[in-house]
């Protein structure tokens, strides 16, 4: 029971980040699973994918759409690649050893973060 409440709060935190940053929320869930709930990295990633299956971002999309912040055509075109790429990426992940997996995860996040943060300075 206590654990379920922890999961609900993990979801809430992931959701706030999801709505705030327009992301799935997995990058919040995975560190919470891994660092606070002591999940092994692959299990954290697999479980995060479960949480991302239902359209949890629905209310957030409505908030953005009301303000005119959704580019529908681009969105539709992105979907097939994401689905197929997802299967491919998961096949690669299964071959990676857990500790290395967490380092790959952290390194990619850092690069993406730097791209976002420093990209604004050129404009």
């Amino acid at each position, binding site marked *: 029971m206590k654990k379920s409440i922890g999961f609900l709060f993990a979801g809430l935190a992931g959701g706030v980040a999801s709505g705030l*940053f327009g992301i799935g929320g997995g990058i919040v869930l995975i560190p919470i699973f891994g660092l606070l709930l002591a999940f092994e990295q692959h299990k954290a990633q*697999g479980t995060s994918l479960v949480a991302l299956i239902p359209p949890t971002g629905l209310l957030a999309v409505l908030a*953005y759409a009301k303000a005119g912040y959704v580019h529908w055509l681009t969105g539709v075109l992105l979907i097939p690649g994401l689905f197929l790429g997802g299967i491919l990426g998961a*096949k690669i992940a299964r071959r990676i050893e857990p500790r290395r997996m967490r380092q790959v995860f952290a390194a990619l996040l850092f690069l993406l973060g730097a791209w976002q943060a420093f990209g604004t300075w050129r404009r």
Partner: protein
Amino acid sequence: MHIVVLLIGLCAGILVGLLGIGGGVVLVPALVHLLHMDQHMAQGTSLFVLLPPIGLGALLEYRKKGAVDFQAGIYCAVGMLLGGYLGGRIAVPMSSRLLTQLFGGFLMLSALLLWGKASKQSPPQPGVSTRDGA
């Protein structure tokens, strides 16, 4: 133009499966820097893309490895529905530039926390398949 969008989707998808994330962390920077969308537009579009179960194929791969806790995932989904609404309400009135920097800073911070944890961790446990030896 459409081809570029399709390719961005594929690249983001590979990271979805590889990292177990929604893909928004890749989509948002890609939409901003490659398609020159404004930060809010990129985030709104990314959220829309994540509505269908794009991670389902990836999830099935993880299940083959037994690396899934369904109960935890379902509880999280409930919390995320509410949290997503709150986050959206906070982001929409913010300036695009501030939002972009906040996003980048947030990603780098999570990365550093995780890297620290990965480096401190004990060597891989026996029974876990690994090529460089346990």
